[in-house]
């Protein structure tokens, strides 16, 4: 393999000023011929700086690092002036990216005349051909930008970028503000360009576009690469805590899931972090995170091309089940015991701050698995590791401490909550049991917890279970489960017994609290509709085995196993109808 077309090494950019802002803090990337690299990031992540930096337009910013284009170092403005448009061009997407007072044709032909010394006739012919190629037609040459629609302007912009046949094209948010039809055409056009052998570098936050075009994806956070790797791997199964949050916050993901944010706000851009820049918002930070920049390493359990810049090697597993089997005694007879296998060799991983949906038909073994996760049942064989420790081996004090890390929510709160206790007592019980804090603190904590589940403490503290609705009771149960600040919440059919309005409320509450606390959740349900709304990843079980597993979006778009399809159908045409537009973005 020859050297890549574009190679960027340790690119650092700082804007001077009273409080200098570091926009890029050491970015490496490579771009090969005929491939598309997609840089994902929020606004302020350094995307624009990267785009401008790659064509030498950073003005008075301090730039360090190395940019090599076709094996040639680009250092000063002379170098840049030599390669601009002939070897690298850019597509800008704002409304003013085309000069409002010049005709489209002139703006396309301009670089050709300046760099290629083309005659007017040759330039005009080239302009017409290009306008045809991008799907506009020669009529557009005589128009002013005002006279074209946003989509047409974007296509014209691409014609501008192609005019000198630059092998590398930078695309800054190429799909922003386009209607679905135009967007589809544009992506098709870009795909064709890539297949011709051009190298595309796309900076975007449009995940669907990335999914459609990108070969590789690079996730940028505050001028620093959080995760990089093959597009499918990163987009479907992000492993860095930041990219996980970013990808799950994105509405164009094509899932029916409720949006989740990343907790906290982006920090002050003028502060340069010593350690991992994401540490303030990360739910799995450890002291080592603030000490030094995390190196880019393959995430836990992988050795492939994907890398994450995380001290903990990406999201850490909270709970791991390995080869779990569990059978129940069906009949005890003279010829021996007759067993029925509820769970037959299941592997299951729940990672940090992730919501895993566990779905299956009745009797598929879901509840058994859920209870094994909470160690309410002992498996016959297999391994259960909670934050790295083997829970099955724990006893006594250690086990009690481990139990606090996993809490469970049961289907019917009326059964799960003792009718004798007042609500206050119920919520306080786990604190008493685990002897957390002093009694006064526990009382305050109860009020706080009830507040978190949106129950007015003063009104419900002294009530008993029969005085509250099922929805309210499930929220009391949730408060109780949260009391010990668990790392994992196992919710077994948490909305099964609720009426529809309460169902929505409790689901929303679960999701909100899960994001705020950075807590992982295993959501067990037979209703795929409920699960898809909340879960990041879905595991389908049937007959005690895992039959399908994948990101929610993928399960929704391409259900593989018949059981999954059946469950999808059963959970209502409603999902299919409401989200049909999102199912296939390209």
């Amino acid at each position, binding site marked *: 393999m020859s050297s890549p077309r574009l190679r960027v090494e340790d690119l650092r950019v700082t804007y001077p000023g009273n409080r200098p802002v570091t926009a890029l803090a050491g970015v490496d990337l490579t771009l090969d011929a005929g491939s598309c690299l997609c840089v994902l990031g929020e606004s302020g992540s350094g995307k624009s700086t990267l785009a401008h930096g790659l064509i030498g337009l950073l003005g008075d910013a301090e730039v360090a690092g190395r940019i090599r284009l076709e094996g040639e170092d680009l250092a000063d403005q002379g170098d840049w*002036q030599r390669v*601009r448009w002939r070897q690298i061009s850019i597509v800008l997407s*704002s409304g*003013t990216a085309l000069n*409002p007072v010049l005709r489209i044709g002139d703006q396309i032909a301009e670089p050709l005349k*300046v760099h290629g010394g083309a005659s007017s006739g040759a330039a005009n012919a080239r302009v017409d051909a290009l306008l045809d190629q991008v799907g506009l037609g020669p009529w557009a040459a005589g128009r*002013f930008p*005002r006279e074209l629609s946003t989509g047409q302007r974007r296509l014209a912009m691409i014609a501008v970028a192609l005019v000198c046949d630059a092998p590398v094209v930078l695309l800054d948010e190429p799909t922003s503000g386009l209607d679905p039809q135009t967007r589809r055409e544009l992506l098709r056009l870009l795909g064709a360009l890539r297949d011709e052998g051009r190298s595309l570098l796309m900076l975007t936050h449009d995940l669907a576009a990335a999914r459609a075009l990108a070969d590789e994806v690079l996730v940028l956070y505050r001028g620093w690469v959080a995760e990089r790797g093959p597009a499918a791997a990163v987009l479907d199964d992000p492993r860095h805590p930041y990219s996980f949050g970013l990808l799950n916050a994105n509405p164009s993901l094509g899932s029916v899931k409720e949006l989740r944010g990343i907790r906290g706000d982006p920090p002050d851009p003028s502060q340069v972090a010593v350690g991992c820049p994401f540490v303030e918002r990360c739910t799995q930070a450890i002291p080592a995170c603030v000490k030094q920049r995390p190196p880019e390493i393959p995430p836990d359990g992988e050795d492939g091309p994907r890398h994450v810049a995380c001290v903990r090697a990406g999201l850490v597993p909270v709970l791991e089940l390995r080869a779990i089997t569990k059978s129940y005694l069906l009949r005890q007879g003279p010829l021996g015991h007759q067993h029925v296998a509820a769970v037959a060799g299941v592997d299951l991983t729940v990672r940090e701050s992730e919501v895993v949906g566990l779905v299956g038909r009745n009797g598929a073994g879901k509840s058994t698995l859920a209870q094994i996760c909470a160690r309410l049942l002992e498996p016959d064989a297999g391994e259960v590791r909670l934050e790295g420790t083997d829970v099955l081996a724990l006893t006594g004090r250690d086990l009690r401490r481990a139990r606090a890390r996993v809490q469970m929510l049961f289907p019917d709160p009326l059964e799960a909550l003792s009718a004798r206790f007042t609500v206050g007592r119920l919520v306080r019980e786990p604190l008493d049991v685990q002897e957390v804090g002093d009694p006064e603190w526990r009382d305050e904590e109860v009020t706080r917890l009830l507040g978190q589940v949106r129950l007015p403490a003063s009104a419900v503290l002294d009530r008993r279970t029969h005085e509250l609705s099922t929805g309210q009771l499930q929220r009391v149960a949730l408060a109780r489960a949260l009391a010990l600040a668990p790392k994992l919440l196992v919710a077994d059919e948490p909305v099964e017994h609720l009426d529809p309005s309460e169902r929505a409320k409790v689901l929303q509450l679960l999701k909100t609290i899960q994001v705020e606390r950075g807590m992982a959740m295993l959501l067990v349900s037979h209703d795929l509709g409920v699960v898809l709304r909340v879960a990041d990843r879905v595991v389908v079980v049937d007959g005690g085995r895992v039959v399908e597993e994948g990101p929610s979006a993928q399960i929704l778009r391409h259900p593989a196993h018949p059981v999954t399809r059946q469950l999808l159908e059963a959970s209502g045409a409603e999902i299919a109808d409401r989200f049909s537009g999102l199912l296939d973005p390209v």
Partner: protein
Amino acid sequence: MSRPYRSPHLRTVGLYALTLWAVITLVFVLPRLLPGDPLASLSDPSSGNFLYDPTARAKIAAYYGLNKPLVNQYFAYLAGLAHAQLGWSISQNTPVTTIIARRLPWTLLLMVTALALSSVISFLTGVTAAWHRGDRIDRALIVALSAARTIPDYAVASLLLVALAVVVPVFPLAGAKTAFASYSSPFAAIGDVGRHMVLPVVALTAGLAGNKFLTVRNTVISTLGEDYMLLARAKGLPRRLLKYRHSGRNALLPFVTAVGIQTGFAVGGALFVETVFSYPGMGTLMNAAVTARDYPLLQGSFLVLATVVLVVNLVVELAYGRLDPRVRV
């Protein structure tokens, strides 16, 4: 497409026609509106306007036709204008139209030259200053052109006169050409006229350039942050194209608007500058008319100058669409 009579151009022309009518009527109404007998001050020896010559007083009274009904006066006035009759000059005893026809070209020569010159200067300096904003060259240009804008034309003219016609007598003191000169060739004639023009034009240009300079500078600065400028630089275009084609083109509309508005200022400036240099244009004419209280001449001059300004503004407004595609609907 809208029907022709609804076109924005016709609308503009209509509005200017209305304005012209307002000006014509203003000239008719003004002397009649003023409190008391408008001509009373002419016969009042204690007034600054006192006119010594009784026959002149009688002629003025006849010109205004004050003894006839107002409507008749108005229509007689309009009919006169329709035949390009602007009245009879008292002091020169000649038709006003004839006098103005002799003087107007000189004023137009000064104005057009100064407007053109100041436009070129202000555009170039404005773009340059914007391009170097904050640098020393920008500051120097701002100070120089702000001063040129602030100091009245006649003060600049007087200082130029003293400096370059008296202390260092490079240019002639007064007039539009050398008196009683006979020229060996047409070029000599043009050279002589040109030499006489230099100082008045410089004085006039200074004031006009100042205003437009700031307009151009600020518009160009506002374009510098736009994405099309970023793109133009990304295209690797040479600086000249960036400066004038991409950035300067966008400053053209406000610039041309400024040029249109400036015609009025240019007229005023020309009147002052001509007076300083005794240049034989409308300025010296109006100055003499004021001294002689020659009202018909004053009114005629005002009407003609107002018409010139209105026509230029109309042309500028009609030209907008050609210059800037953003104005087209």
